[in-house]
């Protein structure tokens, strides 16, 4: 039993045409027992950045608070909003600072560059090793399932509505084959006009 599988999670972030989507399940469990069916794992950091934190729930919440704090400091000092690349790098450094006693979280970052509207995706392991991709990133207790679904369903340059459908199907099919994730889902689609959030109704088990 890995500590990263204690609470259960599933999340995907995917790039479309001038938009990004990020989706996660809603379950919080203590090993086999489900404790909450509306646990938030995807957090809006600003208008252009969303971060998905999957792993040990206490570290998810702690890291969210730390990131809010650091973003606030940045905005006070720099008098401008953080860009997704900078945010991802900040997160990576934060995690590596705890190299020999890490936060048990494997985050994914989804953002939109404010000027060019180009999508930004990155994911990291629990000690901050980052990887940037153009198509999709996944994290959680069913990454095998998620990779399979995303690899098959992904097409480049999807419009926001098509991106939503793709994310929804990929997430639901994957979590239905994993005991530790599921109990519904939430999908955020980020475009230059704003963020659209939709709840997914899935198998409640």
């Amino acid at each position, binding site marked *: 039993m890995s500590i990263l599988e204690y609470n259960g999670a599933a999340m995907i972030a995917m790039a479309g045409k001038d938009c990004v989507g990020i989706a996660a399940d809603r379950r919080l469990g203590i090993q086999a027992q489900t404790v909450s069916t509306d646990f938030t794992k995807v957090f809006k950091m600003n208008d252009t950045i969303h971060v998905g934190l999957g792993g040990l729930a206490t570290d998810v919440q702690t890291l969210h608070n730390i990131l809010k704090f650091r973003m606030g400091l940045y905005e006070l000092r720099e008098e401008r909003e953080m860009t997704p690349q900078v945010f991802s790098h900040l997160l990576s450094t934060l995690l590596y600072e705890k190299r020999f006693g890490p936060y048990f979280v494997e985050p994914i970052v989804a953002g939109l560059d404010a000027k060019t509207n180009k999508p930004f995706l990155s994911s990291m392991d629990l000690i901050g090793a980052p990887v940037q991709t153009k198509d999709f990133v996944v994290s959680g207790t*069913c990454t095998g399932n998620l990779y*399979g679904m995303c*690899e*098959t369903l992904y097409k480049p340059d999807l419009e926001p509505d098509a991106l939503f459908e793709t994310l929804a199907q990929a997430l639901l099919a994957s979590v*239905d*084959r994993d005991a530790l994730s599921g109990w519904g889902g939430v999908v955020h689609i980020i475009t230059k006009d704003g963020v659209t959030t939709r709840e997914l109704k899935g198998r409640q088990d």
Partner: protein
Amino acid sequence: LTALDFVLLQLLQHTHINLYRSTMAPFRTHNQQQNSRNAAGGPGLAMMPPIIHSSEGPVMAKADTIDHGVTEAPYERGFSPYEFNGGTTLAIAGPDYAVVAADTRLSSGYEILSRDVSKLHALTDRCVLGSAGCKTDVDQLRSVLDIKQKIYHHNHRKQMSTPSVAQMLGNTLYYKRFFPYYAFNVLGGVDAEGKGAVYSYDAIGSFERTPFSATGSGQAYIIPLLDNVIGHKNRADEKRELPAEEVVEIVKDAFVTAGERDIYTGDSVEIMVITAEGIQTTTFDLKRD
């Protein structure tokens, strides 16, 4: 050996050890010479019990038994009878057909042993077994099933039906419940009524008839996709019956995906479509990386 032989043997060993000592004397420390068992007047060299080199250092075994590291000075043995040779197999049942597919890569660790080894085996005209896992166990399992099938055919004057093959495979696997065949199987074929039938197995013979099945190193990548596309789960649009050609395209997509994300899957895919008329085989190339 007579008693005289035994005495002569001891004399020989005694001379040998004395010769050794006189040669090595200038190189031996005073301590070593003092601690020499002969000097202490203990039993002779011939009676010295073996030294076991355990993970905690060399240990003298008990004089009257050889423990083999079981209760005293336990040591690790490095031999495992199993090895994973990789690969992914998949089977889908339709209204009047079944599709069974498997990649053709054989690997061991990070090495590719062959790019062109079949994981599919037609047991009868209407039934194909796909197996991933340990190649030698898979081959042996196939031999055993072939023989049993031949005997059935001889006794009953007809080929085994697919549900019968399914049961036979389950029983054959359970026969080796306490030293299992390291084989992950899918069985696909048409049943006695001509409808597609797929059976999924675990390594020790638990089986079930299912609409589709995937097994092997790439199964996690493929199963949710089949749930969604074949099982029509979590979908709002109307479910329609899929013809064999469309299912074959889905199978190809599934293997491309598995080939991308799984290191043990790739090279090419062998696809067999089984209908009441017989079995048709096609191949499809994958990335060879």
